[in-house]
């Protein structure tokens, strides 16, 4: 499942709820890899007070769906939960959750990381940071490897 959220969310509670509802007591998943991106209070040496996440409604969802579909062609997993914030975010609040359930650990790790990297490079989101002395757009992502 893929969701954009315009309000704070608890990634691990969402994960547990989704797992119970969707995967249930199936005994089929042996591995879960979950990545949570959280807003830091610093970036490139500056203190950051808040952040706004802009997106391109429609295009963002379409490309997130495609990334998950592509991951599904490359790795054998059971399910993916992807939640991404939009709107105003404060330090310590989660920005993104990607969780992958699979039988074996290799697929869970690989697919989770693939979805995160592709999301960073292809999903149309843009971060604007609020600093002590003004605002600035984040110009590029950090390296993932």
């Amino acid at each position, binding site marked *: 499942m893929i969701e954009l959220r315009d309000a704070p969310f608890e990634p691990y509670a969402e994960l547990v709820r989704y797992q119970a509802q969707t995967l249930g007591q199936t005994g089929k998943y042996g591995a879960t890899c979950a990545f949570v*991106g959280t807003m830091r209070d610093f970036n490139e040496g500056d203190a950051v007070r808040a952040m706004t*996440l*802009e*997106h*391109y409604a*429609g*295009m963002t969802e*379409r490309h997130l769906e495609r990334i998950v579909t592509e991951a599904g062609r490359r790795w054998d997993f059971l399910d993916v939960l992807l939640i*991404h914030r939009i709107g105003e975010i404060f330090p310590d609040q989660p*920005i*993104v959750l990607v969780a992958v359930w699979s039988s074996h650990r290799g697929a869970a790790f690989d697919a989770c990381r693939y979805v*995160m990297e592709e*999301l*960073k*490079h*292809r*999903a*149309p*989101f*843009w*971060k*604007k940071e609020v600093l002590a002395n003004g605002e600035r*757009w*984040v*110009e*590029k*992502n950090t390296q993932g490897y």
Partner: protein
Amino acid sequence: MSIKVRYFASLREKMGRVEESLAPEGIDTVADIWKVVDEGQPLPEHILCAVNMEYADPATPVRDGDEVAFFPPVTGG
């Protein structure tokens, strides 16, 4: 009909507008649109573009009714 042009993030602020509609006459590609909206300038290399929500490049064809978007590198996650 017309071609809808949208701007996002820092480019939206730089352009001073969220979106606009262009008459399709004389427009064959994404590059043609940029010339219209930026006073004849070529599309800067670092600016990304999409046609109907698919990534595109300056040579991508554009037709009447399309939605074309310009934006800076993405920074989600």
